[in-house]
């Protein structure tokens, strides 16, 4: 491995120049000329209501209005894992802001004006805004037709209830495990909803041309998955995959929010109604908050048992998720957590219930971390509290129970190679664990907090990656892949992988942005899996191309292919030191023989990767028997936090995070993920504070009232640490390390708050206001007012439901 020339280096990003010059083009920057139509959506003000009638006549009379579309025109359901979401609902609305109609007009102002003239008559229903009420036997149902929905085979919705999915994982003997424990700690943790807040709002432009071809320019992480989901939704109109093309230029931030299909269905529906004319749908910042995906809220009950020596004997982890009005993607978040809520620990007896509950709040879905940030808040808080209860150091307690290669996971498969011990040790050393720091300011106290993390990509077992590779006359090459450059540096990493096999410098490699007509297949850019999955495909394509080049040289020049190798953009020979053939001399035009003819031709190749060892088939009562996750990435993090005892204001003096990337293809890009992830994670615990009113309306859908960090809010010091325990099936040993970096943030802050001031915060976020109130002995729950970020109104400790009450169905 030490002989690597391009992999493991940190060249500049290959998209850097486009981005610093403003040349980078995003969907909204593409010109479509004077015929472009603009759309405005008519939104419901109710969280739950029946649609009695829609009168579009006044809107249709406005000059400049081309078409008004409702669910009558386009009554189709769609969804990635479960088809429960509507392009336009026909019978009922399920969250405030849901689209019930749309106006397509010559210009945006006219569309906006006319949308206000659409008259919708509703019959308001009781909204389901409380998880306990949602799970009662006489609950109001959000989806009365749940039993009829098409879904993936590993979802278990319960018809006649609000339970969209229930993942149960059982290992060992849970009762015996708790009997063996000397200490048992049980408590409830709550995490509200969050918004992705990519700076670029969702936007889609579509054209259903006069020949019947549908092209969509989409701000998306998922070009192929969008094509597939839309092909399913549009099948009743006679369209199939070959009729649909999705083009995805640069994306201004994803974080999961631009995965799958959300508002894009509206764009697809509208263009189908105005054949021959392109239509643009661009979300406002407010719509970005309430009508794409949100990160779901959760109430998590943890019961953990351990022996006096610190050995964990059992965990019971019950998670009830506020998954919103539609869970076509979000239910898989719930599923992923249901398989992995042990955290990165070797625990012999496990009982996990992860329950996906419909509510009348915005749809939930993928958000960087895919549920792991949410459950780590409780679990890693609990780990520190358990250590204290045992009289152990929280870092030693984690070391003792840290998962190792070959351990049996909760669902029965074996753990992959991992560097958790090394991560713990290096983070503890970097943060100066055990050394108390004292502020010079008597009003301020300093605490330290520690947390471990793990996460696996959540993918269907047949989520494949593919790559095309072709040479140009000058020996440069293009890679046609459909992973998405969402900022992580994917294109640069793919270029480095191809460069390593082909010995072509990355300056001569173009990685193309996706176009489903042209580039090879990629399932989606989610789960931090593209470096691993698509990296394997690119590597295979490069090996394919290399073999073809050697074959041509052998045929044309008679030099045995197994003696050939590549170096400095040339084919060379191990047995003939005088032989060298520059790639540019033959990769398009072939090699001329002594007879004057040419052998070869344009060199191009392809590569495919499919995780053939995975399976989602398992016993629904225990989750035993399958291999649902390809591998886990692990790590640890710690924070030094200063708290002003009077104001509660917190300042992060230092944050450090170690992640086991297997092999960092580009260490500087991994560091970029670590630093960016730390800040995004800290934002969810220190600043972001979503609020709904008691009728389910989001009241802070903007950056004035929903605060994300500015440059003034970042930690004073951040130290990224890369651990490299190779992933055997990864390209050059690499595995994903992107989402993971925000997962430990909330728990490490909660642990640092307790270390500093002795308060145990069990409800996110942990804002200065909350800390200040609690320090003065005023319970925040008593004074917070009626606006809530949770799907419940009362005190979290009051929630004693979990599997027993829910099991009654």
């Amino acid at each position, binding site marked *: 491995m030490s002989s690597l020339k391009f992999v493991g280096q940190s060249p500049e990003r290959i998209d850097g120049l486009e981005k610093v010059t403003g*040349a980078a083009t995003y969907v909204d920057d593409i010109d479509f000329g004077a015929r472009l139509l603009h759309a405005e959506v008519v939104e419901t003000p109710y969280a739950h209501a029946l649609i009695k009638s829609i009168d579009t006549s006044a809107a249709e009379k406005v000059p400049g209005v081309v078409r008004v579309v409702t669910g009558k025109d386009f009554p189709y359901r769609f969804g990635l894992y479960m088809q429960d979401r509507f392009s336009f609902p026909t019978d009922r609305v399920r969250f405030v802001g849901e689209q019930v109609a749309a106006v397509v007009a010559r210009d945006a102002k006219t569309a906006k004006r006319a949308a206000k003239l659409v008259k919708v008559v509703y019959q308001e229903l009781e909204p389901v805004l409380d998880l306990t009420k949602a799970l009662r036997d006489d609950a109001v149902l959000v989806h009365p037709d749940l039993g009829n929905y098409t879904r993936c085979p590993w979802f278990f919705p319960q018809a006649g209830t609000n339970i969209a999915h229930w993942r149960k994982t059982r290992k060992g003997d849970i009762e015996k495990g708790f009997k063996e424990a000397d200490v048992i700690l049980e408590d409830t943790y709550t995490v509200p909803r969050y918004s992705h807040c990519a700076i670029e709002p969702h936007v889609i432009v579509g054209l259903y041309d006069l020949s019947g071809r549908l092209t969509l320019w989409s701000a998306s992480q998922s070009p192929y998955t969008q094509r597939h989901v839309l092909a399913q939704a549009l099948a009743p109109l006679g369209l199939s995959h070959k009729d649909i093309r999705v083009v995805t230029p640069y994306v201004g931030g994803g974080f999961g929010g631009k995965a799958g299909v959300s508002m894009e269905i509206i764009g697809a529906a509208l263009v189908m109604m105005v054949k021959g004319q392109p239509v643009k749908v661009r979300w406002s910042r407010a719509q970005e908050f309430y009508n794409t995906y949100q990160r779901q809220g959760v109430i998590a009950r943890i019961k953990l048992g351990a022996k006096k020596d610190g050995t964990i004997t059992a965990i019971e982890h019950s998670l009830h998720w506020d998954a919103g009005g539609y869970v076509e993607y979000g239910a898989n978040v719930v599923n992923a957590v249901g398989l992995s809520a042990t955290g990165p620990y070797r625990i012999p007896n496990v009982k996990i219930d992860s329950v996906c509950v419909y509510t009348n709040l915005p749809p939930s879905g993928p958000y960087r971390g895919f549920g792991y940030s949410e459950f780590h808040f409780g679990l890693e808080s609990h780990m520190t509290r358990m250590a204290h209860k045992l009289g152990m150091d929280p870092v030693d307690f984690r070391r003792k129970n840290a998962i190792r290669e070959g351990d049996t996971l909760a669902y029965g498969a074996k753990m992959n190679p991992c560097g958790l011990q090394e991560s713990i040790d290096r983070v503890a050393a970097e943060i100066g664990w055990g050394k108390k720091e004292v502020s010079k300011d008597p009003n301020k106290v300093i605490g330290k907090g520690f947390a471990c993390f793990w996460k696996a990509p959540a993918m269907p077992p047949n989520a494949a990656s593919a790559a095309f590779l072709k040479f140009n006359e000058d020996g440069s090459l293009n890679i046609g892949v459909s992973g998405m450059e969402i*900022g992580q540096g994917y294109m640069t990493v793919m270029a480095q992988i191809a460069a390593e096999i082909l010995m072509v410098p990355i300056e001569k490699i173009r990685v193309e942005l996706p176009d489903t007509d042209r580039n090879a297949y990629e399932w989606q850019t989610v789960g931090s899996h593209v470096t691993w999955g698509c990296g394997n495909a690119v590597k295979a394509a490069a090996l394919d191309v290399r073999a073809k080049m050697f074959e041509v040289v052998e045929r044309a020049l008679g030099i045995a292919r197994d003696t050939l190798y590549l170096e400095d953009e040339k084919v060379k020979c191990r047995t003939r030191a005088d032989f060298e053939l520059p790639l540019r001399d033959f990769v398009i035009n072939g090699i001329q023989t002594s007879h004057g003819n040419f052998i070869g031709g344009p060199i191009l190749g392809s590569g495919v990767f499919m995780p053939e060892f995975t399976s989602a088939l398992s016993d629904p009562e225990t989750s035993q028997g399958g291999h649902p996750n390809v591998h886990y990435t692990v790590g640890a993090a710690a924070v030094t936090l200063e708290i002003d005892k009077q104001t509660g204001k917190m300042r992060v003096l230092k944050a450090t995070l170690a992640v086991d990337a297997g092999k960092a293809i580009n260490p500087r890009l991994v560091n970029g993920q670590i630093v960016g992830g730390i800040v995004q994670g800290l934002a969810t615990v220190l600043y972001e504070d979503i609020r709904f009113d008691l009728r389910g309306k989001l009241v802070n859908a903007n950056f004035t009232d929903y605060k994300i960090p500015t440059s003034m809010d*970042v930690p004073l010091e951040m130290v990224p640490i890369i651990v490299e325990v190779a992933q055997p099936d990864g390209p050059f040993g690499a595995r994903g390390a992107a989402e993971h970096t925000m997962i430990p943030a909330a728990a490490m802050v909660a642990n640092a708050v307790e270390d500093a001031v002795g308060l145990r915060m069990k409800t996110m976020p942990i804002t200065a206001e909350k800390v200040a109130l609690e320090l003065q002995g005023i319970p925040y729950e008593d004074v917070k007012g009626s606006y809530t970020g949770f799907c419940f109104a009362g005190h979290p400790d009051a929630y004693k439901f979990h599997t027993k009450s829910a099991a009654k169905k």
Partner: protein
Amino acid sequence: MTKRITVTLNNELRSLDVEPSDVLLDILRETLGVKSPKIGCERGDCGACTVLLDGKTVRTCLILAIEADGHEITTLEGLSRSGLTPVQQSLLKHNSFQCGFCAPGMVLSATELLGKNPTPSKDEVKEAISGNLCRCTGYEPIIDAVVAVGKKAGKRA
């Protein structure tokens, strides 16, 4: 009712008719075809639409096009035309951007700062770019790149 306005956009005199209610950001992007100022929030929170108006950063989503009449506007396109400026070079070298959507505004805010204060401290850089939201990078590589420009300039001086 439209009004004829004249602006100097990236060193070129441009005349056009605008409605009194037209927002400068929309006019720049749709009428004048300059796409680097981005639409992020339309209420002055995110800074993605930042341009230089007479050398000072403004949020074009909060300005009416008629207010720009007679003024000089510089966007990232104008800055980039004669090669990379030192701050662009430094941002490139530091891998400062990830998704790149905040980059146009961020580059202009940094450019304004360095024009006034060629050797800014880390805190001064943080303050100068605090009106430009970035969700990807944690700001650190952007701050480091701008500070590095100042350090280089300081050595030359």
